[in-house]
C-alpha cells in the first residue's frame, strides 16, 4: 500500500485529509477505507469537521467520503469541505519561513505565556536580523534598530530594545514585552501596533520597562522600583 496516497492530519479544528491530485478518486477512497480499518478506532465517538486538500472533489465524492469515515471510524461528521486555509507549510521551507515572518492572527493562538516553549538568543540582534519563534523569546543582548524579534509569546530583552518587536504575534493580547531599556522603533502586541513619539527623549542608563495591552492600547510601566 502506498502510504503517500492519503494521509490524515488531526488538528485543533478537526481532521484534514491530505491527498494527491494525480490519484483518482477510487484509489483514494480505497485507501481511506484501508487506513480507517487500521487506525479508525482512534476517532471513535469524536465529532468534528473534516477538511481535505490536494485534490478537488465533487459534492457527491465529498459525501461518499463523509459516509465512509463516519461508518468506519464511528465518529460524527459535522461537515466536509475543501481546506483553503494555507497550503502545506512544512513541505515548502520558503513559505513556512514566510508564515513565521508575517504570522497570521489565529483564533487558537500561542497560550504558553507563563509556562511555554522559550527560545533563548545569546548576542545582539543587529540590523537585518530576524529572530522569530513560535513561543516566548528571550534575547540576552541588545536589539538594534533594523533588527526584528517576532514571537507568538512574550519577548524579554536583557539589554536595550531599539529595534522592532512583535509579541503575541499570532493573536495573544496577554503577551508582554520587557526590556532593560525599552526604546523600540515599533512595538506590536498581537494586532496592536504602536510607535514612540517623534520627539526623541534622551535617556541615560537602563530603565527596566514592560509593555502590555489593555483595551487595545499599549501601556508601558516600570517593572522594578524607581530607586534602583
Amino acid at each position, binding site marked *: 500500500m502506498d502510504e503517500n496516497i492519503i494521509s490524515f492530519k488531526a488538528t485543533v479544528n478537526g481532521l484534514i485529509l491530505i491527498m494527491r491530485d494525480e490519484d483518482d478518486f477510487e484509489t483514494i477512497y480505497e485507501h481511506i477505507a484501508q487506513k480507517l480499518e487500521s487506525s479508525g478506532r482512534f476517532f471513535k465517538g469524536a465529532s468534528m469537521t473534516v477538511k481535505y486538500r490536494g485534490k478537488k472533489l465533487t459534492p457527491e465524492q465529498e459525501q461518499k467520503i463523509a459516509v465512509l469515515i463516519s461508518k468506519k471510524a464511528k465518529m460524527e461528521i459535522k461537515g466536509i469541505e475543501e481546506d483553503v486555509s494555507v497550503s502545506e507549510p512544512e513541505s515548502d521551507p520558503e513559505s513556512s519561513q*514566510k508564515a513565521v*515572518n*508575517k504570522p497570521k492572527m489565529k483564533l487558537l493562538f500561542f497560550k504558553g505565556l507563563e509556562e511555554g516553549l522559550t527560545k533563548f538568543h545569546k548576542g545582539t540582534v543587529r*540590523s*537585518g*536580523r*530576524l529572530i522569530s519563534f513560535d513561543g516566548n523569546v528571550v534575547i540576552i543582548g541588545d536589539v538594534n*534598530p*533594523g533588527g*526584528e524579534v517576532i514571537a507568538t509569546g512574550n519577548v524579554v530583552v536583557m539589554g536595550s530594545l531599539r529595534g*522592532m518587536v512583535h509579541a503575541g504575534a499570532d493573536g495573544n493580547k496577554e503577551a508582554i514585552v520587557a526590556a532593560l531599556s525599552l526604546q523600540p*522603533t*515599533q512595538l506590536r502586541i498581537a494586532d496592536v*501596533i504602536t*510607535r*514612540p513619539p*517623534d520627539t526623541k527623549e534622551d535617556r541615560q542608563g537602563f530603565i527596566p520597562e514592560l509593555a502590555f495591552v489593555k483595551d487595545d492600547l499599549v501601556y508601558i510601566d516600570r517593572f522594578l522600583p524607581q530607586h534602583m
Partner: protein
Amino acid sequence: MGEVIVITSGKGGVGKTTTTANIGTGLALAGQKVVLVDTDIGLRNLDVVMGLENRIVYDLVDVVEGFCRVKQALIKDKRYEGLYLLPAAQTRDKTSVNPQQMMKLCQELKEEYDYILVDCPAGIEQGFKNAIAGADRAIVITTPEVSAVRDADRIVGLLEANELRNPKLLINRMRIDMVKRGDMMSIDDIIDILAIGLIGVVPDDERIVVSTNRGEPVINDEKSGAGQAYRNIVRRIKGEEVPFMSFDNDQGFMIKLKKLLGLKAD
C-alpha cells in the same frame, strides 16, 4: 500617467538615498503626487533618511508577494502632502523580488501617482536589475572622484543596454574650492568621460549630514547650498529650463553660496 525615475550610481555612498529623499520632497512641495520606492532590500535607508522608520508595517516584499495591497504598504510622509514611501524589507535579501514583479508594481503606481522615484541599491547585481526594471528615466549620481565616475560609466553602459536611453547626470558633493586648486575633478572632466546630459550639481554641504541624521530633507532649508541645487534639479525634472549655477566666474550665485556655506570667497 506618471513617470518612473530610477536614481542609481553603481558606487555606494555617493548620495542616492539623500538625492531620492530631496527630489521626492521637492516634487511633492511642487504639488505633485510622489512615491519613493526603496529597492535596497536588506540594507534599507530611505525610511531612516525620511524619518519614517517607526511607521513601517508592510514593505516592498510584502507587496510583491501579495501579502498586502500597495496602498497598505505606502507610508504617508509626516510633513509633506502628496509624498509617500514604499519601504524595502530589512530582514530579506535582493532575491526576494524579481524584475517582472517590479515592472508590475511600477505600472500600478504610475496609474495613480505623478512621479515614482526608485532608490537603487549600490552594485550592478539583482538589486540594480530590479530597480531599473520599471523605470522610464534614469538619474545617474556620481561624486568628483575617479572611482565614482568609473562606476557611473559602467552604470550608463548597463542602462543603455537595458533600453534606458538618455540618463541624466547628477554630480554630488562638489567642492568648488578644491576644483579651483586642481585637487578635484571638475564638472567638465566628468562630463568628458561620461558624455551624458547634466541635470544638476550639488555642492558638498555639512547640512546634509545634519538633515540625514534628523530625518528631514535639506531641500526646504533656504540657507543650504545643497537645498538650492536640489530645488533647481526638481524644476528641471518637471521640464523647466533653469540655468546652471555658475561655477567658473566668481560673480553671481556661487559667491553668495560660498558665503552661505562659510567658505572663503576668493
